[in-house]
């Protein structure tokens, strides 16, 4: 089956003005403007099957949003071939735009001063949604996102969480087949983030929509995405499932052990933290079973857990590895959010 999204050797460069700080430099720039070529995306190739939810990860400035904007037709590629549902996004054909939705965290597309319900009606007209379909989808989305009490309120009177739910509903009224989520949970509290994730998963389950999601919240990724694409400095450095990412990039386990009495466990592995009797060890994956057995044999262990490294650490290591992805040392205390 034809993939929903196919990208082959995508490149995107921008010409960005720059100048030194200060009034003199600003005046000089009036007459002689300097620009710099910035390469945002280099040689990106990927395919996403229909119905997949894929996490698109990378540090700030990696090229995630640029790629998303090329896929949604906002930007013209500098070079490369991009197809979404068989369409060339940059052509911005009506048929294509009726099949996609772009949701950007903390950005507003609803009409600010009028009730949410009126924004939904405007959306119906723009997308030519038949009345019967509109009512059915609106009712489904209102129920899933608990918007009953918000429909009659002007958007400017909603909290951020309420507004994002309304934005999400508006984006889905035309039943898009491909959804581009650019940090959709940005700025939301933990409860709202969880609700949004549950909604996205349920929507995907019910309607089989293909979803490409960028987020800096690892819970978004770990909950929703089996597959992740990691991009850094404009290049893809990993494309696969989360378990494989963890195996390839972070080949270690974390062992949390609570002892009956303090002891020096440095001979077993790297001490990550030590709080008297509660110690965290980092050991290579292959040696984790042996280390566990020796700890239990040689020390009075009250509690012991063996965990995979936190996803934040794995992603950070993938970022640091970069496009060539050699093995790297585990991160220190600063973590990806």
């Amino acid at each position, binding site marked *: 089956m034809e993939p929903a999204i196919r990208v082959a050797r995508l490149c995107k460069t*921008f010409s960005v003005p720059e100048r030194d700080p200060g009034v003199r430099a600003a005046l000089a720039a009036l007459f002689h403007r300097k620009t710099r070529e910035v390469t945002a995306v280099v040689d990106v190739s990927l395919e996403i099957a229909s119905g997949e939810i894929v996490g698109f990860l990378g540090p700030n400035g990696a090229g*995630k*949003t640029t790629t998303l*904007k090329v896929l*949604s*037709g*906002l*930007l*013209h590629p500098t070079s490369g071939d991009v197809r979404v549902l068989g369409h060339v996004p940059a052509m*911005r054909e*009506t*048929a294509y*735009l*009726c099949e*996609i*939705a*772009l949701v*950007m965290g903390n*950005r*507003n*597309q609803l*009409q600010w*001063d*009028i009730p949410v319900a*009126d924004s939904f*009606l*405007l959306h119906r*007209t*723009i*997308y*030519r949604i038949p009345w019967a379909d509109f009512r059915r989808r609106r009712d489904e989305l209102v129920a899933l996102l608990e918007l009953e009490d918000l429909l009659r309120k002007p958007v400017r009177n909603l909290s951020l969480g309420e507004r994002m739910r309304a934005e999400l509903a508006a984006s889905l009224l035309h039943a898009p087949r491909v959804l581009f989520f*650019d*940090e959709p949970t940005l700025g939301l509290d933990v409860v709202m983030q969880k609700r949004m994730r549950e909604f996205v998963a349920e929507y995907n389950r019910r309607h089989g929509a293909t979803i490409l999601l960028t987020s800096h919240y690892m819970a978004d990724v770990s909950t929703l995405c089996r597959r992740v694409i990691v991009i850094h400095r404009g290049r893809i450095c990993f494309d696969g499932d989360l378990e494989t990412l963890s195996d390839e990039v972070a080949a270690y386990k974390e062992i949390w052990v609570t002892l009956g009495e303090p002891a020096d466990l440095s001979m077993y592995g790297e001490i990550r933290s030590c709080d008297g009797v509660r110690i965290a060890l980092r050991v290579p994956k292959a040696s984790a079973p042996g280390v566990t057995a020796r700890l239990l044999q040689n020390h009075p262990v009250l509690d012991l857990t063996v965990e995979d490294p936190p996803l934040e650490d794995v992603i950070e290591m993938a970022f640091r590895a970069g496009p060539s992805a050699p093995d790297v040392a585990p991160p220190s205390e600063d973590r990806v959010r």
Partner: protein
Amino acid sequence: MHVVRVVLAFLRVAALNELQYRANFVLQLIQSLLALGTGLVILALVFDQVTDLNGWTHPQILAVMGVHVMMGGLIQMVIQPNILQFMADIEEGTFDYVLTRPVDAQLLVSIRSFRIWQATDVLVGAVVLIIAVTRPGHAVEPATAMLFAASFLVGWAMLYSVWLILATTAFWFVHVDQIVDLLNGFYQAGRWPVGIYPGWLRHGLTFLVPLAYAITVPAEVLTSKVSAGAVAGAAAFAVVLVALARWFWRAGLRRYASASS
């Protein structure tokens, strides 16, 4: 048909927005009447001293004033609010959502914002125009009225195109808010028939900022100072301007770099 529905949908939204701010209607009416009153006083002062201005009589200049107020009302009601919103969208990054809609981006950018209460200017201008051109024994023929409507539409299309061309430069320069003040400044010159100005200014107000076609020519149609042929020539010029605006707009869209995430 879909285009008409979308325009009507945005008109409805604009009405819903404006109806929340009823004081604006009263304020707008007061402002329109004040501006008109000032213009009429100046006109009366001028014609106290002369009987005509370069061949233009008092009723004829009053007709120009009526068209000027009507056209100004349409600009303030439709063109300016949409251009201002477009420029704000480019700066703030909210233009992205315009491009994801299955509606032509130029159309969407041109109809998203209406300032309904500016329609008071259109009504006030129409009243002045009717007073200027209808005198006992001198009714306006239906054919003349239709030619006037056509020339008014042509003039409006030209002004819209000039506004759009200048606003499109935002794709390159981002901050181009000053064009609004610039165009509004030029627009004040259209209060008087373009023919009274010196040659260089007359040509500028004909071909650069086509106030001659937008204001003077429609008034000339109603006061029998111009023929259908002249209106046809204006229409041809309008087609060129509209095509140029469209081409430039599409070039700007290709250049669009979006704002930071």
